[in-house]
């Protein structure tokens, strides 16, 4: 990604890929989970079907992932949270192995042992956690390692606005500023911590304001817009790479699905998602690309078709992969 045009196109393509992935997962996830083939009386069975367990989808939040990751190199680390697919895809985690992990298959990133909230891909320097706020200190560790090793690598911690009320977040910010670590904290404000609105969980409107208390720059990106994120992240990542320390960025973004698939969303005003979707960030970036002559209908159709095939191939790979042998349950607690 040498030129800005390359990066813009990459961001667009990657947003389309994330959206295609999440929408495909939303459908596949429901397979086997609805009546009549589940326990009588249930509306939904979270443990049934080819992709069992919880599922947190990131459709609508693509700008955060691509706007930041467009600046990253292979050696840079990313630590995501419980809603991790968009970050993983933007960091280059291979779709086949990632999808197989969510199916619990032996070909998955963690041989089926982790599942969708626990994706580990050391080759692409990506990890995530199902515990809210847990990633921020770990990103500090990756940044500390870069510093000790004398590299100009950076580390990114992605988390939701709910995580900014965890002690781990505040401790990590202080540590990062104190040790001048090359880390960027990126807070996705999608308005809700499960059902609780930000205003009911957080004493101030913008988490970016909290940065001042730790002696680092705080930046608020007020629009769910890939270019706006790209711009803010570029400044922060360059600063970190130059050894000038951490930055906290908060992005106001939009969660199109529930907290998890199957969330009744009774806490959400009717029509909210529909209204959000009218300002979808993907066509917005597409329009910019078209203005610059980087995209037209034919090229758009072509790239969307290629992405559809790629995503489909990943789900096929996962579906047709075998489950691990049960003996594997007892392996990998320790390395040999």
């Amino acid at each position, binding site marked *: 990604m040498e030129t800005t045009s390359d990066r813009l196109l990459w961001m667009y393509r990657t947003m389309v890929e994330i959206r295609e992935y999440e929408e495909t997962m939303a459908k596949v996830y429901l397979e086997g989970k609805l009546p009549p083939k589940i326990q009588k009386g249930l509306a939904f069975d979270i443990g049934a079907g080819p992709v069992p367990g919880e599922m947190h989808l990131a459709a609508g939040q693509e700008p955060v992932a691509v706007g930041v990751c467009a600046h990253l190199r292979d050696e840079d680390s990313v630590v995501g949270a419980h809603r991790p697919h968009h970050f993983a895809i933007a960091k280059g985690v291979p779709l086949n192995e990632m999808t197989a992990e969510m199916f619990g298959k032996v070909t998955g990133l963690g041989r089926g042992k982790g*599942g969708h909230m626990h994706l580990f891909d050391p080759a692409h320097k990506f990890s995530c956690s199902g515990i809210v706020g847990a990633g921020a200190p770990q990103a500090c560790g990756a940044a500390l390692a870069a510093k000790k090793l004398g590299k100009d690598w950076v580390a990114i911690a992605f988390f939701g606005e709910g995580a900014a009320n965890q002690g781990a977040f505040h401790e990590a910010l202080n540590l990062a500023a104190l040790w001048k670590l090359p880390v960027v904290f990126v807070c996705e404000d999608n308005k809700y911590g499960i059902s609780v609105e930000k205003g009911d969980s957080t004493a101030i409107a913008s988490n970016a304001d909290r940065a001042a208390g730790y002696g680092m720059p705080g930046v608020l990106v007020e629009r769910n817009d890939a270019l706006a994120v790209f711009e803010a992240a570029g400044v922060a990542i360059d600063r970190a790479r130059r050894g000038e320390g951490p930055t906290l960025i908060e992005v106001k973004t939009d969660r199109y699905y529930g907290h998890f698939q199957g969330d009744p969303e009774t806490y959400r005003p009717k029509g909210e998602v529909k209204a959000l979707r009218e300002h979808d960030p993907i066509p917005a970036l597409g329009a910019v690309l078209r203005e610059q002559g980087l995209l037209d209908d034919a090229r758009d159709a072509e790239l969307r078709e290629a992405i559809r095939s790629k995503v489909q191939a990943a789900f096929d790979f996962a579906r047709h992969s075998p489950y691990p042998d049960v003996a594997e*349950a007892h392996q990998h607690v320790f390395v040999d």
Partner: protein
Amino acid sequence: MTTQQKTRTLTMAQAISEAIGQEMERDERVFVMGEDVGKYGGIFSATTGLYERFGKERIMDTPISETAFMGAAIGAAAEGLRPIAELMFVDFFGVCFDQIYNHLAKNTYMAGGNLTLPAVVMTGIGGGYNDAAQHSQCLYASFAHMPGMKVVVPSNAYDAKGLMIQAIRDDNPVVYCYHKGIMGLSWMSYFEGSTNEVPEEAYAIPFGKARVVREGTDVTIVTLSQMVQKAVLAADTLAEEGISAEIIDLRTIVPLDTETVLASVAKTGRLLVADEDYLHFGLSGEIAALVAEHLDSVRLKAPVRRLAVDAVPIPFSRPLEQHVIPQVDGIVAAVKAQLATPIGL
């Protein structure tokens, strides 16, 4: 003269929220704090309907700040209030365990008994629905291992209500663990034996009184929580083959009803512990040790057996998870193996 009690069939989740609601009506010092306990009604429906009845001053949604609200429960309890703090998944205790085990559990002792902390920590436990290593553990034995907390682990709606009322009225810290797979949720398969008849009025079930779920003569299955429901199904299968299993539901593990366990094992001569917590250094070892310490009065016909989660994190993949968490078939097989293995010399 006894009056006829009015009962209805309730899920465990309904029984818990009813218990909390009745205690909140009775005692204005009782209130609830936790993530999504308000409008959402609790992720596992343990507080459904309470926000509408009692409002946001008494059913308090918290930030995702477990250390803050767990510590706040301690502070409020010390002032005489009776908080119920919901830790959404027990696995999240890692975030706030200092408040729980270094303070909630110890302050009364360090104050020489001069401090009362009547707080309930209510939490979702258990796996079986592919929620992987950070959202599927039981961990009740970890609380029981450390002194200063009573630990309640109900297996059905009737017990869940009576034990919750007792927990709220108790003047000590109580950790109340409900297994997600017996709550009777509309979005997770569950064992129907956990949904049962529950009286409308408030009643308390004393702690430390195990329940003999089913009498038997060949083997004693000591168990708790969702595993009680699995043991009942296993006992049905065993009965078809002429094997008579006695099932003991511990209901609380602190205090532990040692008397009921020992009396049953003395009668049957065989002990199987069926547990969904980790095998090592846990509940099943504790029960086995209890029996070993009483071999002067208990005569065993077969070595003790333990079924629990081997020393691995709960794997995500369905076949692996089903393999590491004891299932009905595993209980049946363990009992048969036990009957075929007499004590050697």
